[in-house]
Each structure stands twice: as structure tokens, then as C-alpha cells.
């Protein structure tokens, strides 16, 4: 198959424009307790029930680092093939807001825990490496709720202090679909590692998107705008396209781009200015004097490294080599840890070639239609393996198998039970089939003579009639053999 070429340039009457994108992804760390307090991180609890004196910044309260969150950050860093910094520093990012109880957020500014790394994307035009600038740990703020009362804002501090990893990419992304692929890849890696559940509806994964444009061939970057807090991949793609077009329009009409922070209006599909560079906050970062510099040793890192699970890229290569899958098939099957597990469970006891098609084509169609995750699939991997084995052994045909599968989807039943109960077992007795074939031919003597006089297209008609007579259960191979023999005479 010939490879496609990258072709995301925004073309106007005058020019062809390249879009340059960098992402700051905020990923909530999977951890039972917060980054600097023992409060629970459970999502969806009653407002202000998961809040300690530290999270609400009472006088004299002090942060104590949650060791597990450090492990999670290091693990994620290793998953991004990144440099882990043995010394990192927590800083205070100072600003006033009602849902920021201390008046500062504890973050890492100049010395993050994870340095440069990279992520490989599989695009239709080949694989592409996206540089990771850094990953740092920080606290989440609380939530301001403005729509409960016309006069008041309510504050929910449950999220205040929850650990986030901010993963900053280099400006290596060039299209909405690369962003789509990048975010999905990050999410897959973190789900494999168990460091972030990637649930965008619950806000566990959100991103600030930096967009600039330049004429195709230009090597200097244009002025960028940052689109804050976009919480779905679809909106990221829409926001990038819309923002890029806005910038191009400005540039082509002789105006310049102001570096600023913008918000994406999902209803109007437009970005609008949130604050200009002049209005930008001065966060007055400085090292948090309540926390000592974070020092980790190489053996801590090595220990995590030695216990890392197989990562998506490694699994993909193994699938290609060991199971003889195409890169595309392997990609689809490793894109989600649960899918890959399901697939490996199926092929434990069944034919790989049949299994990959059944999973990728038949099962995915059902899951998509019903909008359910593979972990909730009505067809268990064991049952799918059984079904595949009945095909391999010739017990039922592929066509009947689809019928059985439909029933399995509805009932979750064992396929052998369905085949038995519904009497769907393939008819493979040559004597029985011969009787049926003779009967069909006798009922269609005119067609038989037409066939014999050269109208060979009618062969399919005979097969169809025989299948009808066997209610579709006739073994096609045996029917073929007998039918050909009979028609020769």
C-alpha cells in the first residue's frame, strides 16, 4: 500500500499555511490521596467533603508530599522515554482566586521532576516523533460554581490539592489529527501505566493548546496564542482549526497576532480573547519554603523502571512479530490496554487470523453501535474463542457464525449452547447432502440443461437453492464437491 503524504496546510487564495501546535496536557494522577494532604480524591463526592485543613489553607497548615504521586510522575516520565531529574523543586505560583484557598498553587517551575522525552505517533503518512519538553507535578485548584445562585458563587474544594501532571510538548504538532493522535497516545501510555485514567468527562485529562501559523516553507515560528482548558479531543481539533484560520485571516489582512490567552466557545466554534499579554498574571513564582527540594535516587528510578508494564509501542511490535499482524491491526489492538488484553485472551485458544478479524471487525462494530467499552463486552473472550474454534473445525460456517454471534451479543451465552439449542450445526454428512442436491437439481431440470449448455453463471443459483433447502447449515465445501460432480454428468 502506498503511503499517504502529510497534507494539512490551510490554503488561501494567496498562500498555503502551516499550523504549529504545542500542548500542555493536565493529567490527574491516579492516587487515593491528594498531592500534599491525606484527603481522598474520589470523584463525584458531595461538595467540600474531601477537604482537609491543608487543602483549605487554614493558618499554620503545612504541605507534606505524597510519595506515591512522585512514583506516578516518575513512572509516567519513563513511559514518555524522558529524563528523570534527581533533584526537582516545588514552587509557589501566586494568584488570587476564590477557589485557590492558599492564594498560591504549589507547582514546579524551573526544576520539574521530568525533563525531555518523546512520544511516537503512527500517522497514515508514517510514524512521527513528538518531543516532550517536560512533565511537572502540581496541585489542582477547587471549583467555582457560578450557576447555582444569581448573586453568589459557590466554591467546592474537593478537587483542591489533587495531584496533576502537566505534560508539555514541544511545538512539534502540525495538524488537528496529529493532536488527536498525540492526546490519545498519551492517554494510552498513562492508562497502561495506571498513572492517569484519562477520563475527559470527569476532567482527569484536559489541555491548554498553543497555536501559531506560518507560511509553508517558513522556518521561524509565528506568534502563538494559548487556548485554555480544552476538555475534549474533538474540541481541541475544532479549536485549532478555528484559531489557525483566525490568525491567517489577520495576517493576510496585514495585521499582526497578539500573544494572548484565549478561550474556545464550543457552541460558536470560535476562540475569543481571555486576557492579553499585558493583562497576563505575574505569578511571582518562588521555591515553596514549606517544602524541601525533592531528591530522588537512581535506585528509586531503577526500581520503577524494572517493574514497568509492557508499553503500547512494545506491545505493538510484539503483536506484529509474534502474531504476524499488520502495523494497522496491531495499532488498533494496542490502542487500549483492555482491548489488547481481550485480544490476547481470545487467541490463547483460537486461530489468530480469524480472531483478529472477529475482534477488529465484528466485535468493534457491536461495541461502537452499543457505545460500550470492551471491558463490558457482552461476548466474553472465552466465548469468542469458542465461536472461532467452531468455525475452524468446520462445525459451523462463517455465515452461521455471524448469526450465532448476534445471539451471543444479546444473551452473552456460550456459542456451543446456542448452536445446539438452535440446531445450527453444519450439515456435513455427504449422503444427506447428496439427497438434497439431487432433489434441488430434479426440481430445476430446465436450469440444469441451461447450465450444461454453457450458462455457468447458474452455478451460484444451485448453491443458493441448496443452502435454502438446508436452512443455511449445509457445509459449503462438501456441497461444492458433490454439486460439481453431479453437474458434470
Amino acid at each position, binding site marked *: 500500500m502506498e503511503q499517504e503524504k502529510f497534507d494539512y496546510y490551510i490554503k488561501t487564495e494567496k498562500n498555503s499555511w502551516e499550523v504549529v501546535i504545542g500542548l500542555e496536557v493536565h493529567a490527574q494522577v491516579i492516587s487515593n490521596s491528594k498531592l500534599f494532604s491525606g484527603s481522598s480524591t474520589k470523584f463525584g463526592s458531595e461538595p467540600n467533603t474531601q477537604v482537609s*485543613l491543608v487543602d*483549605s*489553607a*487554614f*493558618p*499554620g*497548615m*503545612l*504541605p*507534606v*508530599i505524597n510519595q506515591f504521586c512522585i512514583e506516578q510522575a516518575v513512572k509516567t516520565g519513563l513511559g514518555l522515554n524522558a529524563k528523570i531529574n534527581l533533584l526537582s523543586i516545588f514552587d*509557589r505560583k*501566586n494568584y*488570587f*482566586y*476564590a477557589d485557590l*484557598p*492558599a*492564594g*498560591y498553587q504549589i507547582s514546579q517551575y524551573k526544576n520539574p521532576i521530568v525533563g525531555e522525552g518523546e512520544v511516537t505517533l503512527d500517522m497514515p503518512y508514517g510514524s512521527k516523533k513528538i518531543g516532550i519538553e517536560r512533565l511537572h507535578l502540581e496541585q489542582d485548584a477547587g471549583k467555582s460554581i457560578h450557576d447555582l445562585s444569581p448573586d453568589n*458563587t459557590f*466554591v467546592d474544594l474537593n478537587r483542591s490539592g489533587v495531584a496533576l501532571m502537566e505534560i508539555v510538548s514541544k511545538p512539534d504538532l502540525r495538524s488537528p489529527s496529529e493532536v488527536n493522535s498525540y492526546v490519545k497516545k498519551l492517554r494510552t501510555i498513562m492508562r497502561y501505566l495506571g498513572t492517569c485514567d484519562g477520563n475527559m468527562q470527569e476532567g482527569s485529562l484536559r489541555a491548554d493548546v498553543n497555536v501559531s501559523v506560518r507560511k509553508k516553507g517558513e522556518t521561524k515560528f509565528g506568534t502563538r496564542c494559548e487556548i485554555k482548558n480544552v476538555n475534549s479531543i474533538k474540541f481541541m481539533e475544532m479549536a485549532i482549526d478555528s484559531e489557525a484560520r483566525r490568525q491567517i485571516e489577520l495576517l493576510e489582512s496585514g495585521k499582526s497576532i497578539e500573544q494572548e490567552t484565549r478561550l474556545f466557545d464550543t457552541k460558536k466554534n470560535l476562540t475569543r480573547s481571555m486576557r492579553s499579554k499585558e493583562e497576563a498574571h*505575574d505569578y*511571582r*513564582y*518562588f521555591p515553596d*519554603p*514549606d*517544602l*524541601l527540594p525533592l531528591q530522588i535516587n537512581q535506585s528509586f528510578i531503577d526500581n520503577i523502571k524494572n517493574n514497568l508494564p509492557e508499553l503500547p509501542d512494545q506491545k505493538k511490535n510484539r503483536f506484529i512479530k509474534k502474531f504476524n499482524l499488520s502495523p494497522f491491526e496491531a495499532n488498533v489492538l494496542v490502542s487500549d490496554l483492555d482491548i489488547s488484553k481481550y485480544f490476547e485472551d481470545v487467541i490463547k485458544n483460537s486461530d489468530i487470523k480469524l480472531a483478529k478479524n472477529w475482534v477488529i471487525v465484528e466485535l468493534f462494530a457491536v461495541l461502537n453501535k452499543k457505545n460500550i467499552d470492551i471491558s463490558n463486552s457482552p461476548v466474553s473472550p472465552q466465548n469468542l474463542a469458542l465461536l472461532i474454534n467452531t468455525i475452524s473445525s468446520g462445525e459451523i460456517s462463517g455465515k452461521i457464525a455471524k448469526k450465532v454471534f448476534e445471539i451471543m451479543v444479546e444473551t452473552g451465552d456460550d456459542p456451543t449452547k446456542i448452536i445446539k439449542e438452535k440446531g445450527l450445526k453444519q450439515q456435513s454428512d455427504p449422503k444427506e447432502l447428496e439427497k438434497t442436491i439431487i432433489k434441488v437439481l430434479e426440481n430445476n431440470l430446465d436450469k440444469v440443461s441451461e447450465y450444461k449448455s454453457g450458462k455457468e453463471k447458474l452455478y451460484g443459483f444451485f448453491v443458493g437453492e441448496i443452502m435454502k433447502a438446508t436452512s443455511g447449515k449445509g457445509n459449503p465445501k462438501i456441497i461444492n464437491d458433490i454439486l460439481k460432480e453431479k453437474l458434470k454428468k
Partner: protein
Amino acid sequence: MSDFNKKSLSEFVNLIKSKKTSSLEITNHFINNIKQSKKLNSFITTCFDQAIKSAKEFDSKKNSSGLLAGVPLAIKDLFCTKNIRTTAGSKILENFIPTYESTVTNNLWSEGAILLGKLNCDEFAMGSSNETSYFGNTINPVGKDLVPGGSSGGSASALAANLTPATIGTDTGGSIRQPASFTGTVGLKPTYGLCSRWGIVAFASSLDQAGPMTKNVEDCALLLEAMSGYDEKDSTSINKKKENYSTNLNEKIKGLKIGIPKEYRIENMPQEIDNLWKKGIDILKKSGAKIVDISLPHTKYALPTYYIVAPAEASSNLARYDGVKYGYRSKKGKNLIEMYENTRGEGFGDEVKRRVLIGTYVLSSGYYDAYYLKAQRVRQLIKNDFDQCFKEVDAILTPSTPSSAFKIGEKTNDPISMYLNDIFTVPVNLAGIPAISIPAGHDKKGYPLGLQLISRALNEQKILNIALAMEKNISFKQSLDRWWE
């Protein structure tokens, strides 16, 4: 009863432990003294009912153990006390009642002490005269028109006036040692990290340290032993075994080398201070210590460094007082920003505002490198100076303050001259090392003066021992006529 006014903390503990007197009797004595001390204004809150109840409970127990068995104590109002109002001397926390107890005070209660009340202090511990308190200035029992020093001015005043047998303060730039010096009492600033900061209203996190304020060195060792210790809730707390300062206290200082830093001989230093210093040197010599001239070359940068680092941290630490969650909230303002502005404008006093402004400025983008970063580098140099000297000497002797207690209102309009009061105490905080101030004499007006002993980190025992030896030979006497009663 009047005999009680001559007793030290250690003596009270012994009286109670030997059942010669009861906790209740002593508690009532101090309550009585406090009730007659309104003129001093050293208390912000008293909790007599609770104290009497606790004393009775203590007396009814068979086993009267604990380093501070049954002794009532008043403490600086910067320590959060469970169910007892804690104001930090500020309007913004005027009605704040914590639901939790600071680690240090909790340590005191675990050793058997009883809370008498909360002592006045400069607002958020920012001040050297106790004049920035929202609850009015505290008077120095030494003289009607004198400040007690600050920020632990209420603590020093109450201690000197026998309103508490001992007390604790906090020291960010001299806030224990300077008021101790001004009131003729003993005050120790421990090594940074020796006492937990958990539950103490923060001023400047990298400098704040709680410490004992007592009548004599023996009490100081006892109280330090009771209050110190590792706390996993404070990430800057030092994880080490608790020391027995009181049992290890001795006056054997023969052969110790004591450094005299030439940089502390500042311009325009009163002759009396210089004489006091010489007196201290002579006493040390007589006790068998060896005097060594040393140099701490970066001393002159300590004050400007302190007045960048401390306000920077304070500006961030005080951001939480915004009227949203607890504390004072202005009723004025149409939106969130106006509510913030009015709350903080009305809730904070001038000195706090001044420091928040300075701190915000030095951390601002474009100024950070020139001020905060440079100050941090200088801080390291100051630390290195001390490290270098402690290779040679066991301790350093300096005056505690460049003057005796000044008059109320004398320096309120001159912040620089007020800040200069901390010139001998501030370097120690920047270096994170321990220092003690002991009363060493009087000036010609009869006001007490203190000498300061400094040593390397975690060397509290050594300065306590030297202080004890000096105390014996100085024979400092202070008799106040209790004019306030």
C-alpha cells in the same frame, strides 16, 4: 503567695511533683496576677475557666508525671490552640477559633502544662516593639513608657511581670531574643527545624522558629526539651532523636573557644553595649573559655537580605487571608476583587501591608533576580561565614540588641530605625542556627540588656551550658515594683 513570684518554672514543676503545692494553687496565683495586669495589655485572650478545670483534673490524677507537670503557661497568640481564639495580633483573625492544636503547644500539654491564655504580639509577628498589634501595644513591665520589644512582646512582658512562669514565642528575625533582652529574661531561638512549625501562623516559613522564653537558663533547657521534636507534618522538621537538654545541662565550659565577631562592633553603638560585651568576654575568660577574634564578613548584608526574604515569603503566606474561607470579611465591595481589596485593606495593619507590598515587589517578574534571587545567594554567603567560623570556635558571643528598650512611639514613624533593632539577631535566622539571649546587665537608665550566644546547627546544648556558666557569674538581678497592679 508572693513567694510564688520568685519561683522559676523548674521550681514550680518540683513543687507540684513533690506534692508540696497543687497545680490549682499555682494556676490561681497566676490568674490573680493576670487579673491585675490590665495596664500591661500583654494578653489578647485568657482562658481561666478552662485552666482551673485542667488544674483540678491534673491534681486529681495520681501520677503527676511530665516535664511540665501541672504548670500553667500563657503562650504567644501565633500558636493555634484548639477551641481557643487565635488572632496572630491581627484584625483579620480577630474571631478565628482553630479546630486544631499546634504541634509545639500540643507537646507542652502532653508534658502536663496547662494553658492560661494567649499573649499579645506584633501583627503576624511583624514588628520589633509590639506596637503593630491590632489589640493595642503591650507595655514593658520595666517601665510604663517602654516597649517590651517584639514580636513576642506580650510573651516577654507577661514573663517579666510574673503573669506566667515561662512562655514560648516565635523568632523570625529576633522576635524571641530582642524582647527577652528588653525585659531581662532568657530567650532561645532553636535551630531551624528543631521545633515543628505545624499550627503556627506563618510569617516567613524559611525563618520562623518557635522557642522558649524563661526566667533562667535551667528553665530554658527544660522548656526547649518539652516543646521540640520531630514532626512528620512539617516537611522542614529535622528527623532526629529528642535531646534531654535539662538533664545534660552543665556549666563546664573550660577550654571552649568563643568567637568575637568584629563586624558586630557597629558604628554608633552605645558605649554601654560595648561595656556589656566586654563584661561578657571577661566572664567567659574567668570561666576558662578561650576568646578568639573572628570575622563574619557578610554581616552587613544580613538586614537587607532579611528584609527581602522575609517579606517575600510573608506576601505569599498571607494571601490566604482573603475573606473567603474564615476570618474577617469586609461587607463592602461589589465583586470578588473588591471584596479582596476591602477585606485585606481593612483587615491588615500598616506594617503588614508594608511588608506584603515589599514582598510582592521583590518577587515580581523582572525584579526577582535582582532582589529575591540575589538575597538567597547572599543568605548562603552569610551561612558560609558562620560555617567557616564554627570550624574554629564553639560559640560566638555578641550583644543581643544595639540598645535597651526604647520608648513607645519612638520608632513607629521610622521603619528603618525599627528594623535596625534586629541587626544582631537576623543573621542567625538567615543561617538557620541556634542562639540564646541572656540578661547580662543594665544600662544607666536601669533598663536590662542582653548578650547573645550563637552556635552551629543543633548545638543548643552547648549554648545552654555556656549561658548557664555566664548566668552564674553575671548575677543579673531584676526587681520590678509591680507598678501595673
